[in-house]
């Protein structure tokens, strides 16, 4: 356990920074930056998360082992995102004769079918919320 005690002013400053960044997030949502929309939104979110982890969670003043554990959690998050993106980014590379969408194919979504009608089965209600 770290015995470090931060002055209250640090917490107020971080809180202020988080509030300002939240306002920036909202403001940026109204401006179309084209391909930069996503990187900017993620950049702001990452900055906020980093501030929370370093100061509110005291990781900045923790042992190297704690820092390593936090870093490892991020490493696994990167695995989740990167390996999932191997699917999403490369789906369009291959035009399958069975109809997988090829590069540039416009996929249109038709409205959902009314209700499932299996042979001899009772049709379930489609209303959610049980």
């Amino acid at each position: 356990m770290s015995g470090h005690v931060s002055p209250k002013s640090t917490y107020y400053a971080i809180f202020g920074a988080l509030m300002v960044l939240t306002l920036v997030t909202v403001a940026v949502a109204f401006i179309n930056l084209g391909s930069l929309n996503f990187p900017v939104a993620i950049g702001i979110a990452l900055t906020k998360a980093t501030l929370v982890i370093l100061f509110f969670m005291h990781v900045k003043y923790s042992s190297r082992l704690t820092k390593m554990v936090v870093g490892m959690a991020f490493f696994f998050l990167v695995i989740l995102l990167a390996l999932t993106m191997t699917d999403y980014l490369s789906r369009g590379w291959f035009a399958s004769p069975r109809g997988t969408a090829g590069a540039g194919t416009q996929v249109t979504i038709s409205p959902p079918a009314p209700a499932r009608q299996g042979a001899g089965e009772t049709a379930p209600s489609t209303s959610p919320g049980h």
Partner: protein
Amino acid sequence: MTTLAAPSPVNYLNVKTTVASWLLTKDHKRIGLMYMIVVTFAFLFGAVFAALIRLELTTPGGDLVSSDTYNRLFTMHGVAMVFFVLIPAVPAILGNMILPLQLGAKDVAFPKINLLSWYIFVVGFLFTIYALVAGGVDTGWTFYPPYSTQGSPSHVAATGLGVFIAGFSSILTGLNFMVTIHRMRAPGLTWFRLPLFVWALYATSLVQILGTPVVAITVLMLFLERVAGLGIFNPALGGDPVLFQHLFWFYSHPAVYIMILPPMGAISEVIACFSRKQVFGYSFVAFSSLAIAVFGFLVWAHHLFVAGISPYSAMVFSFLTYAVAVPSAVKTFNWTATLYRGAIWWKAPMMWVLGFMGLFLVGGLTGLFTASLGVDVHIHDTYFVVAHFHYIMVGGAIMGYFAGLHYWWPKMTGRMYNDMLASLSALLVFVGFNLTFFPQFILGYLGMPRRYHMYPPEFQVLNVMSSAGAMVLGVGYSLTLIYLTYSFFKGAPAGANPWLATGLEWTTQSPPLPENFRETPVVTEGAYEYSKREIKVA
């Protein structure tokens, strides 16, 4: 090793006997027993559904239950067995019971959080029981959208919430164990003197801490989409149903390693003890646990090969899946090498271990079939896959759990069980298991899909074999329940170390003192110094 003074009449079981003393206990051993009671109940619960499924499948006609009821049966079987039996069985029962003893510690690092995790687990289980009583859930234990969010009329939300809540119990247990292993080791107990069960629990904790939050959030998103109509997985609202599968399996594949790694640790302990030998290649076995935990996070999309993912991505995941077989094979080869020229002692725990080795081998090797892109197209969602994962989860994890349970039972309860009945039970389970699930490999290869209650008449013989095997399996498990219950109350006193085993847990009395050790032990040698021990075969 130290010689024990006369055992104290006070132990963790009899130190206080009121109900409140159990429900408010912070003793890791009592919490382990409390987990055992809930998990055994969940096991019986899941077993009843399994029995009904096998009874239905004895005839091709689907004449016992409706298809809707059948959907609920296999879903509730899966939910109960995966989330409330397999995931907590070894870490929460044997881990809680044995880990601090093996470390020479008085308790886990956070005893109150340990009790909290039991309560959270029970609340999660109660939600699931509520869902069952209210009519059950019919989506399959995987809760795939769009059916789970848009079509299913069953209690998806309550069950999902139950799984979400139980997940936090798993996270807290993992956190507790990891900190305990880092901070609570006895003097002299260096990392490479740790028993392999501890290494396995460490690797498991890694998966619990890093994976479980992902499935918790995923199930929460499913809940929000179903209840509040958010568009996360629904394509009509801009979502993607395959995204659910990615997120769900990011946890649920590593969850297989939560189920199998701790039993593997128990297997290492038992094999060393009943071969009276060092575990062959100790450090390889230790690091293979960590390798399995890490590689286990890189393979999830092999569950999605026919779900429409990119073929290039599928190639990557197929390759990585083959890679995860390597550390598993390291373990199997090393256990076999440990047996080689060992002084094998044919006691009940060893019988369960040998059953594990055979069944896990088949389960692991058939995993390679399913990892292969071309073959998987043919066997996906057939009984081949059902047989494969039962060989891993029941043949591997449950057999390993029983091996560990029989090994540490004298320590946990201070009493012996009937060794002949226990060996017979291991044999019955091994035979019954193979009779139940081997025909399912053939059925799947011949094309019988899973999750249907009707099938073409030519599949009946194999299905009847499978159902008959399930009965044998049921007899084997029931026998275990009977003789262990009898042993708990009437078994002969076990003494501190009935197996003449190494390890700190055997240096204290059975059942252990409330505070585990009279004085903190000091470790001066490796975990499996059997060569220095006298061999006494009873």
